[in-house]
Every structure is written in structure tokens, then in C-alpha cells.
């Protein structure tokens, strides 16, 4: 019942913002949507079995990531309105934007909650549809190119995942639509009769979801999408949509974790992680567009996360914590870039400078965000990285840790160089005459996310630790 109400509410609000095109209606719909999303979040925390009859099940993993989605979702909606007002977008575009944003949030919530493999796949495919409309918001040539590439590659990638799911279906020998669920596959011992079939199936699923996860094989389209999309949308791609990919991958990983496939699977993830890190480093050194730079930083973090999953042990805990802090921080940074685009009117690092002078509060926030995302203490990412490296060394990959540390030094150098260029260099001549005023209230959502990220990093609350430990309880220690 609750689920049907939620779906009707989301689609009703989406239709409302599309058809009623004025400012007041949009504000009311946005506030109502936030209330609906908060209610759902409350429901799944209070009663874990609330949606059980529809193949949706709330477990620790989904509670963590839906809470992230709700928090970043609300800040994204606030920032979207700031974005609209400053660009004076017409109400037709705003309507499409808000409608697809609402449906996107609902689909992502569904992916996190879904217990049925087929439903998870369908909802993941539906997120592609919504995010394509959002990337296309500017309707210029670049937006068209990025949208086309994202949509095409994403659909092909998810077709691969579908083949993988079909093969898994055949391999586990389950019959009927309703029985192919994560909980049933985890409850019974999977008999690995034909190892090759399972391996191909896992590979195809990983390749497909890497487009959402922003990891090695199909990460390129995400870079284009983040660099072109409006700031708030980039933030969603780089935080919650990335989590969608991770959660999908992680659930399949959990199925196979207690079988003889486990060591092989870890090798695959190790290779994906190292290659993602390598690619991120190489491109971050030569890129000259700050949005692309931040996008590559997401790939770097996903590489670290995949490495953490691959080595296991207490790195599992670190991986989930890493993703939580990363989501808040990265979203916040990308909201700030939408201010940069507005002030400097370019995405090229060369044309920027003097942000600190123009907006001291924003500058301070940006410095803290920089410290957190690079994993410099007091950042929580420092501790999670430390834990991942400890696990790597414990599994005998000391040489790999040395290489990764070298890569991270390069990343720190190139990211720091660009951020300090934006913050502290002289204000470019071209924008000196008509400086854009930044209202200090605009920083509130970013400051809020920054404080959450700092707090979780320094002192993870007890309920969060319990949830994370519950999320990884089925994995081998």
C-alpha cells in the first residue's frame, strides 16, 4: 500500500510540474516531493518489512544509501532552483527538469530497495532514461553529444548486464520470475556446476554496471555527462547514481561471496580498481576543464572502493564509509562548480581565478572540501584509505600499495594545483568589470553537507557503525 502511494505521489508531482508551468507551483511541488521522500525514508528505517510483498526489501545497505539519496536529493533540489533563477530558464525546461529529477529519485530509491534481480535491472535502465533528459537540459551541441553518448553506451552496457542476468538465471536453475531474488540466492547454497558460466555472467554484469559505477571499462561517458550537465545534476551523477552502480555490483558480489568463485572475483575487481586509478591519474594530469577534473576524481575514488571490496576483511567497512563521505563531499564540490561556471563563464581552468576574493565563505568551504576529498586529516577519507591500504598490505600487496600511493601523490598535485588556481590567482581581466555577486545564502546546502561529511569522518555515530556492520555481515571475514 505504502509503495503504491509513493509511486502515485511521485508520478503525480512529476506530471504536476510538467503541466503547471509557474514558479509557485514548482516550489510547492518540490517541497511536497521532499516530504514524500522523507516519509519513505522514515518508513523503511522504522519497519524493515514494509514493502516485502512487492519484492522490495529494506536492509542495512538500502537504509544507508537511501538516507544519502534523501539528503543529497533535498540539497540538489535547492541548488536546482538557484540554478534556474540565475539563468532565467523558461518554465517548460524547468518542468521537464524537475519531473525527470523526481522520477530519477524514485527509480534510484527502487534500485536500493529492490530484492528482485529483474526489477533492479529495469529500474537501473529507467535511471538512464531520466538522467539523459537531465543532461540534455542546456539543449546545445555539447549537451546533445554528451547525452547521446551517455544514453547509447549506457543502454548497451545494461544490455550486457541483462545477458549476464539471463545466464545467471540459467546457471542457478531457478524457475519463475519471483524466485530470482537476492535473499533467496543468498539463503541457499549455490552449486557451482559450470564455473565458466558463472564467471561469464559475473563479468557481463560488472561491465554493464560499470557505466553507473564510474569504474574502468565504460567510465568515459560519465565524464562527458558530468562535464556538460548542470551542476546539481552532475552532483547526482557523481554521488547517488554512482552508489546505484556500487550497490548493484555489491549485491551480486554478495551472492557469490561464499562460493568457490570468491578468489577469482576478487582478482577481477582488483584489476578494475587498479586500472580505474591509473586512468584517473593519467587524465587528471592533462585535463584542463575543472568539471572533468572533478569527474576523474570520482573515478579515482571508485577505483579505491573497488580495491577495498577486492581485498575484503575490514576493508568492507572502510568501503561503505568511504562511499558515504565521498557522496556528501563530491556533491558539495559539484554544487560549487555551478557557481564557478556562473562567475567565470568558462569551464576552462585557465580562465578562472580569485574566487576567494569574490566569496570568502565559499572559498573557505572549498578549501575544506578539497582537504576532505583528498583524504588529508581531519578527513574521514584518510582513515578509510588507511584501512583499505592496511587490508591490501595484509593480503600481500605491498608493491601495489606503493604504486597506488605514488598515483595518489600525482592526483593530489594536479587537483590541488587546479583548485588553488581557481581560488587564489588574480581575477581574470575579462570578468573584472561586471563581477557576479554571490549571495552567501547559496552556500548553506554545501556547508550543511560539508559539516555532515566532517562529523561522520571524525566521529562515525554508533547507529551508522551498526548499520555498516550489518550491511557486510554475510561477507567472509
Amino acid at each position: 500500500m505504502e509503495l503504491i502511494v509513493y509511486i502515485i505521489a511521485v508520478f503525480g508531482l512529476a506530471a504536476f510540474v510538467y503541466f503547471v508551468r509557474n514558479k509557485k507551483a514548482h516550489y510547492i511541488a518540490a517541497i511536497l516531493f521532499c516530504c514524500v521522500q522523507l516519509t519513505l525514508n522514515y518508513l523503511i528505517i522504522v519497519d524493515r518489512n514494509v514493502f516485502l510483498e512487492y519484492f522490495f526489501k529494506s536492509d542495512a545497505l538500502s537504509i544507508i544509501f537511501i538516507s544519502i539519496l534523501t539528503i543529497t536529493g533535498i540539497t540538489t533540489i535547492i541548488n536546482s532552483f538557484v540554478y534556474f533563477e540565475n539563468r532565467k530558464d523558461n518554465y517548460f525546461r524547468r518542468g521537464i527538469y524537475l519531473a525527470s529529477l523526481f522520477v530519477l529519485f524514485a527509480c534510484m530509491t527502487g534500485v536500493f530497495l529492490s530484492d528482485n534481480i529483474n526489477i533492479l535491472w529495469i529500474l537501473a535502465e529507467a535511471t538512464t532514461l531520466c538522467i539523459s533528459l537531465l543532461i540534455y537540459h542546456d539543449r546545445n551541441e555539447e549537451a546533445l553529444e554528451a547525452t547521446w553518448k551517455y544514453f547509447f553506451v549506457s543502454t548497451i552496457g545494461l544490455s550486457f548486464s541483462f545477458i549476464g542476468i539471463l545466464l545467471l538465471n540459467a546457471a542457478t536453475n531457478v524457475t519463475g520470475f519471483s524466485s530470482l531474488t537476492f535473499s533467496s540466492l543468498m539463503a541457499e547454497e549455490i552449486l557451482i556446476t559450470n564455473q565458466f558460466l558463472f564467471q561469464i555472467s559475473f563479468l557481463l554484469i560488472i561491465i554493464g554496471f560499470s557505466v553507473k559505477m564510474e569504474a574502468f571499462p565504460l567510465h568515459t561517458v560519465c565524464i562527458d555527462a558530468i562535464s556538460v550537465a548542470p551542476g546539481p545534476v552532475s552532483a547526482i551523477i557523481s554521488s547517488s547514481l554512482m552508489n546505484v552502480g556500487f550497490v548493484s555490483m555489491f549485491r551480486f558480489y554478495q551472492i557469490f561471496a561464499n562460493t568457490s568463485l570468491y578468489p577469482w572475483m576478487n582478482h577481477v575487481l582488483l584489476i578494475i580498481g587498479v586500472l580505474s586509478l591509473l586512468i584517473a591519474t593519467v587524465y587528471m594530469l592533462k585535463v584542463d576543464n575543472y568539471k572533468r577534473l572533478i569527474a576523474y576524481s570520482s573515478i579515482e575514488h571508485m577505483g579505491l572502493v573497488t580495491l577495498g571490496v577486492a581485498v575484503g576483511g575490514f576493508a568492507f567497512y572502510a568501503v561503505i564509509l568511504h562511499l558515504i563521505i565521498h557522496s556528501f563531499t563530491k556533491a558539495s564540490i559539484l554544487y560549487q562548480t555551478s557557481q564557478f561556471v556562473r562567475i567565470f563563464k568558462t569551464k576552462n581552468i585557465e580562465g578562472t581565478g580569485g574566487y576567494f576574493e569574490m566569496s570568502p565563505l565559499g572559498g573557505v568551504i572549498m578549501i575544506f572540501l578539497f582537504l576532505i576529498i583528498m583524504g588529508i586529516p581531519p578527513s574521514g577519507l584518510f582513515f578509510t584509505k588507511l584501512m583499505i591500504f592496511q587490508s591490501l598490505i595484509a593480503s600481500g600487496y605491498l608493491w601495489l600499495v606503493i604504486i597506488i600511493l605514488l598515483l595518489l601523490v600525482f592526483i593530489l598535485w594536479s587537483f590541488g594545483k587546479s583548485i588553488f588556481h581557481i581560488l587564489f590567482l588574480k581575477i581574470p581581466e575579462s570578468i573584472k568589470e561586471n563581477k557576479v555577486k554571490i549571495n552567501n545564502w547559496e552556500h548553506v546546502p554545501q556547508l550543511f553537507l560539508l559539516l555532515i561529511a566532517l562529523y561522520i569522518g571524525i566521529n562515525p555515530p554508533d547507529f551508522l557503525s551498526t548499520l555498516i556492520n550489518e550491511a557486510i555481515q554475510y561477507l567472509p571475514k
Partner: protein
Amino acid sequence: MSNLLIILFLITLFYIAISGRLFVCINLLIVQGLILFGVAFLSLTEINIINLLVVLTETLLFKAIILPYYIKRIVTKNKIKRQVSPFMSGFSSLLTVSLLILLSFILGMYLKNDQLKLIYLTVAFSSILTGLLLIVSRKEIIQHIIGYIILENGVVLLSFSLGNETPMAVNAGILLDILISILLFGLFMNRLSKTYKDLDIDQLNKLAD
């Protein structure tokens, strides 16, 4: 009988790989849709009548009629050039497709079990790989879409192999893909052809490092 149809499906793949004309490719998509309709009719004998009807309308109505018609309309409306300019010659494409089919056969030998029949696996993987080959080796965006549809036909064929056990998965998968292809390929093709003159992939080069 269904085996015969599947072999015919394999032959269309060769034809698509060497054809130099756009409309031949589109007509072959119609043939593929009809073959899929036949295979579904003959092999999905154990599922209930509603699911069967859904699958049959999907293959016949969407794959054999609506999608090819839609692509043809886009081609004539936007005056897209009808000659294919591939990176490789006819002979080498033929050779590549043969190698891909051999590869699929070897892959199928290792993957087959009680539910996955060898012939379905081989032809489905050949179709998927041929679709990818078209996407990689041809320049025009319209050819990429044809490649994608061939890939999707392969996925549908693979799902028919499991269709008697998991009919709803098959339905859901096909339906969503068709929805996406109509909605966005149509929408985007019009936008793309308004923005770019030749619809060549070489023109999509603004975003790069």
C-alpha cells in the same frame, strides 16, 4: 523447424555485414523480426497465453513493423545518405563475422546446460557480436542504431532459450528496451540530424581530453 529459422537468422547476419545500402539493412531488420516471431511461436510452448501474446506482439509489431518503419521515416525525412561507408571492405567484414560466429560457437560449447541450448547460445552471441562490430566499424549514427537493434535481437533470442521458465523476465526486458528505443532514438535522431549535417560519428568530437 525452429532450428531452421534460427539458421536463417544467422544468414541474415552475414548479409547485413556485407550490404552497402542502408535500406537493405533495414529490410533485413524486418526479416529478423519475423524470424524472432516464428521462433517465439514455435519454442515458447509452455508459457501461458497472455505472456505468449505479449511476446508475439512485441516481436511482430515492434521489431518487424514499427521500428523499421520509424527508421525509414527518419532516413527519408532528414535526407540521410543511403550509402554505407564502412571502415573495412566487404570481404574482411565477411571474414570477421565468420570468425565471430566461430568464437560464439566455442563460447556456446562451454556455456551450454539443460536450459541453454547450444544453437540458441551460438546464434544469440553471434548476433550480439555482429551488432557490436557494426557499432565499432561503421561511421554513421543510423548504422549504430541498426547495430544496437541487432544486438538487442540477439538478447531476445537468448531469452527465448529460457523463456519457458522465466517468461516475465523476458517480457519486462523486451518491453523496456523497445520503449527506450522508440522514445529516445526517435527523439534524438531528429535532434541530431537537425544539428549535424551528415550524422557522422566524426562530428561528435567536442568532448575529449
